């Protein structure tokens, strides 16, 4: 464009073109700085959006992080599975293994006593622990209504008599809303 005359008559005044950096001797550098080079082979990685993305992941994982594991299950308990289930809730955990009854991991009675008696009965140790827990909750939350929710982790082989005894004991201790922890079975 700059070399083409504006008319058939020679004109000393021409349209100015690029003049800067024409003196550079290295051709590939001159081409580059004048804008005639090919596509750049070095690409910039967009680091800032990448860091934003990583930070979002970190924040999400930190929010859902639990140092102790969310649902401690006694290793000797094999839970049954069910289809029509609801999501877990935070509540005191009563575990019933083959021989023991545990409240949040602490011993609270024996299943053998119930099995040997062969009748429905209140488990006194469990009753006292749960009653104390309930009273403590009420002292800590005087303005709130006590939810009365308890979760039972019961081994799949435990007899129904033991389950019913613990169920009844929980209800007597002020926890009538009993849930059984189960695995989620696909429909």
């Amino acid at each position, binding site marked *: 464009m700059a070399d083409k005359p504006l008319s058939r008559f020679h004109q000393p005044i021409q349209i100015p073109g690029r003049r800067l950096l024409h003196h550079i001797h290295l051709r590939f550098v001159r081409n580059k700085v004048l804008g005639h080079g090919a596509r750049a082979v070095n690409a910039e990685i967009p680091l800032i959006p990448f860091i934003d993305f990583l930070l979002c992941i970190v924040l999400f994982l930190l929010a859902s992080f639990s140092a102790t594991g969310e649902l401690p299950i006694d290793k000797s308990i094999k839970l049954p599975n069910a289809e029509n*289930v*609801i999501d877990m809730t935070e509540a005191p955990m009563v575990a019933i293994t083959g021989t023991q009854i545990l409240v949040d991991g602490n011993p609270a009675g024996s299943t053998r006593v119930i099995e040997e008696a062969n009748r429905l009965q209140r488990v006194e140790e469990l009753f006292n622990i749960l009653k104390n827990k309930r009273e403590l909750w009420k002292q800590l939350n005087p303005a709130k209504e006590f939810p009365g929710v308890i979760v039972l982790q019961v081994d799949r082989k435990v007899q*129904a008599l033991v389950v019913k005894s613990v169920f009844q004991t929980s209800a007597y201790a002020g926890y009538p809303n009993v849930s059984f922890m189960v695995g989620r079975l696909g429909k």
Partner: protein
Amino acid sequence: MAGIDTGGGHGKRPTNHEIPLIPFIDFLLCLVAFLLVTAVWSQMARINADARVPGPPQPDEPKDPPKEKQLHVEMKGETKFQLVWKEGTTVVNTIDIEKKPVPAGEGGDIRYPDLAKKIVDEWTANGSHRAASDVKLDQAVLHTDNSTPFSDVIAVIDAIYTPKRDLTWSGKTEKVPAFNVTFSVN
């Protein structure tokens, strides 16, 4: 690279700083890897059994409410279940269903699809609380043998929870089990 430019730089010490982004990204990646490895991906759920019969106390409930129909599920028989509709102590209807356990999953669990289907039919025909605005649930009472293993009890409770209905609560409508299950203590 990211940097902090204060516009100065004429003094002895440089005032422009480069933030070391690469170590920062490495640190973040390590943190992500650690958190992913230690994350608890829980598959646990719960199945409810309420000892408050006939359901949670209602503020506007009359003192002497009429007796409602309850579905008693008898699982003491060796070969069959028995569904009994009762009004108080009066037996309204009795239905026998053959025990046909179907294996489910890999852990040796069983299901009772025939029992579940019959309970759905029975609730559709005889259920008392079906309106979405009705916060009360129909009551099911489970009768088990003392020696029945817990996995069988859960299979039957699972079948009782099969019928679902709409429940409108605080302006939101959601599907809930039609029955509230409790145990017979006799």
